[in-house]
């Protein structure tokens, strides 16, 4: 038996690490969602599938701008030394995923704006005449549209992967110490983007295509979650203990119920029935996907802080 008494009592550290509250999971979720929006909008633009007037690729980037700004606000709220935030942009630290993320976010904004300018809302064009002119110039050139689409796919993928790598680079928390987290968060972000497009698409054919894409992303997520747990379970004592948090440990119920059950399996079933025309398309499945994506970030961030190297 080992009993340990420590005289240390640092806030956010003792008795257990709790440095990140709701802000970071919210930011990771919103960032992933925007990544999904960028990749899907970019794909539709780059492959010329934006011909129909009501294509989701025109409205989603505007929503993405709002979501990303909300995410960055959450990130800013989490910082403890806020007046020094500008320090992020006077250096580039190649080994720090957070530094990569800061610069990626800066690249994502102009791509979102350019995508939104393809067909901006009428109100905006009436208010700012320059927008109509710029939109006409950008949207009228097929090569420019394709380039914006490719830039959207590239920057969206980088953003989606980065949200996972941010955590997986912190090896002191065994649960996060997995290279699968990057692809898993990307898959979840793509799924959130597709679910949102499924929900808001006015064109029935496009809505169905997005539901099918979402099903593929959800299946990918299931495979990545399995790889994540198998990889951790076989990687030594500390990592096996971390995987145990979801396999009988304190985070088991919330992970399998909210993330996997309600966030992946249930919408997968509903959307499979909808795309095979057995039930109508509703907002229920996409809403569950979005809630599942949010739950995934919360569970991974909180359980990761709970996991630690076994110490004597």
């Amino acid at each position: 038996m080992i009993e340990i008494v420590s005289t240390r009592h640092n806030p956010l550290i003792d008795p257990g690490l709790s440095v990140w509250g709701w802000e970071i999971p919210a930011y990771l979720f919103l960032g992933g969602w925007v990544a999904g929006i960028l990749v899907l909008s970019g794909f539709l633009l780059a492959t010329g599938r934006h011909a129909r007037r009501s294509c989701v690729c025109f409205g989603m980037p505007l929503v993405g701008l709002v979501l990303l700004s909300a995410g960055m606000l959450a990130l800013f709220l989490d910082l403890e030394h806020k007046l020094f935030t500008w320090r992020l942009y006077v250096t580039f630290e190649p080994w720090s995923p957070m530094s990569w993320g800061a610069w990626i976010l800066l690249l994502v904004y102009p791509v979102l704006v350019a995508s939104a300018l393809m067909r901006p809302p009428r109100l905006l064009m009436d208010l700012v005449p320059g927008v109509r002119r710029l939109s006409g110039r950008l949207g009228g050139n097929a090569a420019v549209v394709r380039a914006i689409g490719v830039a959207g796919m590239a920057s969206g993928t980088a953003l989606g992967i980065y949200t996972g790598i941010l955590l997986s680079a912190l090896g002191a928390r065994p649960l996060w110490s997995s290279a699968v987290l990057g692809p898993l968060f990307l898959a979840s972000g793509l799924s959130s983007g597709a679910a949102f497009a499924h929900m808001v698409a006015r064109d029935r054919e496009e809505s169905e295509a997005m539901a099918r894409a979402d099903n593929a992303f959800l299946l990918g997520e299931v495979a990545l979650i399995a790889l994540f747990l198998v990889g951790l379970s076989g990687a030594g004592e500390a990592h096996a203990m971390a995987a145990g948090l979801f396999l009988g440990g304190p985070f088991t119920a919330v992970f399998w119920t909210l993330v996997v059950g309600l966030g992946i399996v249930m919408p997968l079933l509903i959307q499979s029935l909808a795309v095979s025309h057995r039930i109508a398309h509703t907002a229920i499945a996409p809403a569950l996907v979005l809630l599942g994506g949010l739950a995934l970030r919360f569970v991974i961030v909180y359980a990761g802080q709970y996991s630690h190297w076994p110490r004597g």
Partner: protein
Amino acid sequence: MARLGMVIDTRKCVGCMDCVVACQTENGVPQGHNRDWIRYEYQGRFPTLRLEIRSERCNHCDHPPCVSCCPTGASHVHPFGAVVLVDAKECIGCKACLASCPYDARFIHPEGYADKCTLCVHRVEQGQEPACVAVCPTRCMYFGDLDDPQSEVSRLLASRPHRSLLPEAGTGPRIFYLE
């Protein structure tokens, strides 16, 4: 370049907390926070119990994850003695370094920046020992250049059984405990 480190004799440490108080006084550590602390570890079952008392702090690792994850370069390895330090004026308080440390040796200073043990580099540069080492009443703490085979710390490590904390985390800690 020197590679400063510490060797602590767990057989001499009595857990008096002089090192903790000295650190707080020397470095103005805010109340309710610790740059160093005492850990009591009881092993076994009565009557065959074993007690180890350790004075713990930042391990000033050879491969510090807190430095590599820092997005602004505020966490850095100081050229003097390869000591791991934080520049408060560059730190944004993102807490990635707190999460990256397997020893949980860092904390957020009430002013918002990440804070931790500096090995009293300001004293060492003047030829003095760190405050915790200087005040230890049992002289259980030794400080010096681990790269110098003639230093007291190197000779102790060469002659006595010792261990570091969580070597399996792969960070290369430079605080050693004599057993």
